[in-house]
């Protein structure tokens, strides 16, 4: 059973404590707009921001370089990425507006993500989605994204910060499918819906 919750709404006391649950006077309250899943006893956020975590793979745009070997990467409005190339042997170099994929190695002051293993992405399309929808777009053990990729022939790379890079195949259809997942993330049976939608189009 899924139940809609808003900030300040009281939750059952056995709700899993996570960042979206606040406890005061021994009672649990939601602090975000989301769903309460009574089977998992967990809160699933419907809206929210991406908080960088170590190991997250992200996609960002390189900003104008200020110091040699150090690149600022725009990940979201709130989080800035930083690549320090002198740490790497080969020392890859990037130019302004390059789209890169990287992994978060460390997080400083909640809004500075130190990136490692940066890789320049070739020509492709990037789209923005809400970061809270990313787990749904990936799906359980990547079922959703691999299905979209298989049926449209597009290569898809997903950044946890809400940027998705696509290339090859039927990109327009893949984008349409991803946007549909983003819009209807709160409904169930979505993998089947997307499958029938894509199969009808292809």
């Amino acid at each position: 059973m899924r139940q809609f919750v808003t900030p300040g709404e009281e939750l059952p006391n056995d709700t899993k404590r996570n960042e979206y649950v606040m406890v005061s006077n021994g009672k649990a309250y939601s602090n975000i707009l989301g769903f309460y899943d009574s089977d998992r006893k967990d809160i699933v956020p419907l809206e929210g921001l991406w908080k960088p975590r170590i190991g997250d793979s992200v996609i960002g745009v390189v900003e104008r370089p200020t110091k040699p070997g150090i690149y600022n990467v725009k990940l979201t409005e709130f989080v800035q990425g930083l690549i320090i190339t002198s740490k790497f042997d080969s020392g890859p170099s990037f130019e302004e507006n390059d789209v890169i994929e990287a992994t978060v190695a460390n997080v400083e002051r909640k809004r500075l993500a130190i990136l490692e293993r940066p890789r320049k992405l070739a020509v492709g399309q990037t789209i923005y989605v809400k970061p809270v929808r990313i787990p749904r777009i990936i799906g359980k053990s990547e079922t959703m994204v691999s299905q979209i990729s298989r049926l449209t022939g597009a290569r898809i790379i997903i950044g946890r910060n809400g940027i998705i890079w696509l290339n090859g195949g039927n990109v327009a259809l893949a984008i349409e499918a991803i946007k549909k997942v983003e819009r209807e993330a709160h409904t169930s049976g979505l993998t089947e819906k997307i499958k029938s939608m894509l199969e009808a189009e292809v």
Partner: protein
Amino acid sequence: MASSLNKPELIVNGKRLDGRDFNELRPLKIEANVLKNAQGSAYLEWGNNRVLAAVYGPKEAMPRHTADPTKGVVKCRYSMAPFSGLGEHGRSGPNRRAIEISKVTKEVFENVIFLNEFPGSEIDVFIEILQSDGGTRAAGITAAAVALANAGIKMKDLVYAVSAGRIGDHVVLDVNMIEDNYSDADMPMAISPKNNEILLLQMDGGLDTKQLKEGMEMVIEAGKVISKVQRDALKAIYESK
């Protein structure tokens, strides 16, 4: 203009001018997620008030000196559209009144947003009054709370605001423009419904202790209705699709 000389009769046959009871709210309607570019938004109709609220951020605080490295800052802009009123509030832009309301609104939301989650950044709250009929600061706060929840910003509670007032010996709820101009007291309050914490209390005119208590009880009772409308507006975003 408001003056005791040409004061109209505000209570006729135990009813107020617009036919409401003393503890009756004007009809309230909220729609969330109305603006595409904003992170969160809400449109509110409360009696003849029409309010649009939009939330952007958190993003890097600009200008840089306004940033606080330990917590986020809330920036609020309350503004009345030039066509919003019947003359006397009809000037747009940050006048003395708008600056005051922006400040008190900002302080309401500073108390409910988890600001330590967003160090060095700002959250922008824009409240635009499209049509005004008294109680716009309360309407603005109620709309902005919905917009903030829609933006996915972590908050302790969904705040609501409404005003109480006094006409003669009667304590009334949700005063409109004409009652505001000629009544004996006007008291807007913003409340966090979870534990009924008061986040804003301003007062024009005078109330005695008993009337103040009665007004507060009316506001808290009305808050149940307002909170429900706010929650339903947020719920409706996900039901229509």
